[in-house]
């Protein structure tokens, strides 16, 4: 019934190409590594099962992001409340040569956002997706992508001390 035949190697290649970004999305949305890995296990397995049906109406990255995003939202719905205090989240150790204080502040600012706001700012600003693509991934109108972005950026810019005129 499908004309596109994709094999395990194709899937693994696509997954490895996007895994770092997908980890970032899941980790920032869920707040800890254990949940990140649990959700990604389910999401990747689900993606594998349906990969043979994927045929490129969107990029494979967008498709994978949508699966992971939905899996994260599902997980957040199951475990309400979703707020993840910064001190409760496990963090990878920081490179001491980096501006650790700024990073910690940015982590805190991110944690203060809603998971949906975190998702859109990561998708658009960090990963470079268009509003339409982020809209498709998150299943929300493009206008909502814009409004969530505005709120998220306002908080992050304040933390990063980016003045409006600096932009």
């Amino acid at each position: 019934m499908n004309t596109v035949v994709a094999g395990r190697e194709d899937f693994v290649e696509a997954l490895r190409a996007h895994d770092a970004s997908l980890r970032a999305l899941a980790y920032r949305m869920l707040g800890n590594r254990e949940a990140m890995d649990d959700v990604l296990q389910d999401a990747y397995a689900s993606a594998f099962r349906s990969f043979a049906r994927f045929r490129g109406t969107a990029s494979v990255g967008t498709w994978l992001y949508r699966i992971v995003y939905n899996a994260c939202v599902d997980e957040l719905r199951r475990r309400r409340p979703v707020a993840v205090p910064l001190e409760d989240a496990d963090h990878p150790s920081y490179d001491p040569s980096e501006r650790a204080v700024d990073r910690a502040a940015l982590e805190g600012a991110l944690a203060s956002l809603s998971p949906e706001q975190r998702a859109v700012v990561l998708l658009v600003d960090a990963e470079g997706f268009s509003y339409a693509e982020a809209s498709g991934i998150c299943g929300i109108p493009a206008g909502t992508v814009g409004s969530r972005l505005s709120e998220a950026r306002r908080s992050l810019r304040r933390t990063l001390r980016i003045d409006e005129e600096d932009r």
Partner: protein
Amino acid sequence: MNETRDERVGAALRGLLVPDHRPGFWEDLERRTTTQPRRTDRRLGWLSVAATVAAVALVAGALMRTGDGEVAGGPDVPGAISGEIRVRGEDPDGLNPWKRWGFTLRDDGSFRVQDLDSPVEMTAFDARTRVQRSIHSDRETGETSYTERVGLASPPAVSPWIYVLDTGVGASVAALVAQADPRVTETVHEGREAWHLTADLDHDFPEVRAADSREIVVDKRTRFPLLRIDRLRGSVVDEWRATVTEAAAPDHLFTMEFPPGAQVSREDAGFRPAQRSDLSRSISGYEPVEPSWLPEGFELVSLVVGSLNEPGGPEGMNPPMHFIAQMTYRRGWDQVVVTTWSRRPSPARSWSGYLPGPEGFVWDDPISAGELVLEDAEAVALSWGPAGHTVGDIHTTPRLFAVGDDDEVVFTVSGPLPRADLVRIAESLRPVS
């Protein structure tokens, strides 16, 4: 909408460290994908959910009545509309430009949508042939791809284009009108007779709530939304507007020619037209049924059969569906879809997946498996046995899901109808004679 990207914020975010996977992650995944997939315990099955579902459906309530509502068809109703859709997010300083799409819709379900800010993003669906063609420009590579999907069920699968059109909003408001919801009033919007509704958005997931109220204006004659404004504490956070004109819509608009020499990716979704008289030969595992009652004026326009042997839906999150029979009935711009399918696992695999439910995903129809998070559902027990749910909110087309006594056959009914009508249609299902 101005699609700005904040490079400094983006660079800072990319600089944050992200943990690697736990040891053994990839080995675990390897095991999971090389052996029979297993059911995920956290996902609740249909029947176990029935006892816990919250009865919050907007289509339910004391005001509900069975009624056909106003018919979106007839001599004074246009056969096609076209126009422009504009959306933007919050705009406190008046500088946020609109994002724009052009569209044409016909009352047989055909549509064409084009991103007006990106001329190589468009799709067209021809309801007569159930063929969808799309042109997509890859943002990363700049390459243009051409896709043709044939053998689709009707309506086509949920896609970003369906989000753009937002037709589910119109269907949900039409259902509210049919049940005399007092929140819906009549108005005239830019010269068109319309319904107006302002509703509180009372999500059960406040942490991600983007708005607390929604204002909707829907064109009475075509059910097409003309305005949707989401507000949070009185401030506009999302604005969707459409200008509509009534225009001829020749067939070629919905077939969309590809340039000569274009490399076209083709897909056959596998659905084929069927005759009522032959349905029992096309379906095995259960006795085909059809509604013996529908609101006045609905006529069968499409009957297709097919199977989805792999997990279905855009995310592959739906269970395999076997021996699907989908009947589409139209009354002008109104569409009712009745679907039956078997969830008996394929002999080739034991993956059982999960059925739609309050913890799952919305789908207007099992074939057009959705990506929206389910908000409202109400348990319903049909007199002939099946346990089911009705779902209605102001975002999507109202629908009913039910599972037969044998726990194998799934029935769905969706359309711009009150809950009572959805239930009555489900109650009326009879073996195809």
